[in-house]
């Protein structure tokens, strides 16, 4: 299982980019942290979830 924003999901082996697409995240507006380290944008394409990964995804808005 993979923990994304506190929720356990059966995503091991799945691609991060597929998950982001399914959940309508816009890559330029999000930050992803995996097991305590920020995942650089350049690593998104190759990243696949592994068993036990703890992932935080947060999206930002502009405006003020």
């Amino acid at each position: 299982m993979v923990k994304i924003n506190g929720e356990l999901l059966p995503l091991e082996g799945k691609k991060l980019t597929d998950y982001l697409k399914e959940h309508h995240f816009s890559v330029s507006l999000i930050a992803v942290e995996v097991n305590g380290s920020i995942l650089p944008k350049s690593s998104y394409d190759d990243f696949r979830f592994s068993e036990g990964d703890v992932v935080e995804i947060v999206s930002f808005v502009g405006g003020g």
Partner: protein
Amino acid sequence: MEERFARHYVLKEIGEEGQKKLLSSKVLLVGAGGLGSAAALYLAAAGVGTLGIADPDEVELANLQRQIIHDTERLGKNKALSAKESILKLNPEIHVNAYPFRLTTENISKMIEEYDFILDCVDSFGSKFLINDACVLARKPFCHAGVVRFSGQVMTYAPGRGPCLRCMLGNVPQKGEYPLCKTAGVLGAAVGVIGCLQAAEAIKYLVGAGELLTGRVFRIDLLSMRSSTASFEKADPDCPVCGKEGFSLKEHREEYGE
């Protein structure tokens, strides 16, 4: 003096000592729009001794649905000057520096130098990154926020205490990649909530109380009334601004929209 801040004096996290710190502190608000309106009024009321407020724009009728520091009589007036008037009405005992111009790669470093804490109250990611990069380089703490429609986020940066905005997002999101308040709309009360959170972060930093949103992003959606705090504890060691030497603001002008 004691009477004005009586409710701070009874807070053990502020008290007389904390109030003295606030009175001798300087906070710069970049932007006197929706976020800046709420944050500036609460910081002024709290007795932050010097407030700087920068905004090159003029008050327009469509601003008044949320930019509560301005009013109908100020239509056409520069926002920084209008904000100064309102702040001094609320608390004439503090000092206000109004900067009726845009902060750019040319002037921002000098501007932030004399302030203890900076608030990102601007609307575009270009300007948000300019504030981020300039504050990181100058080792100044600041509170980032963004808000559109019914939701927004807040994150605080302090040197050595977690990631900066560039660690989090990498490159500057370009106009067209994200919704703007002008086209997507924004609830005035939502901007007020987020702006108040920024004021609270500044006050907590200045008096040394509680836990800041360093290494954390707080998000709230007023439509569903759901909020969350995501932890991003470590800065990116490869971040070109906070992780490495030699970052130049001027080389990133285009990204900032200059």
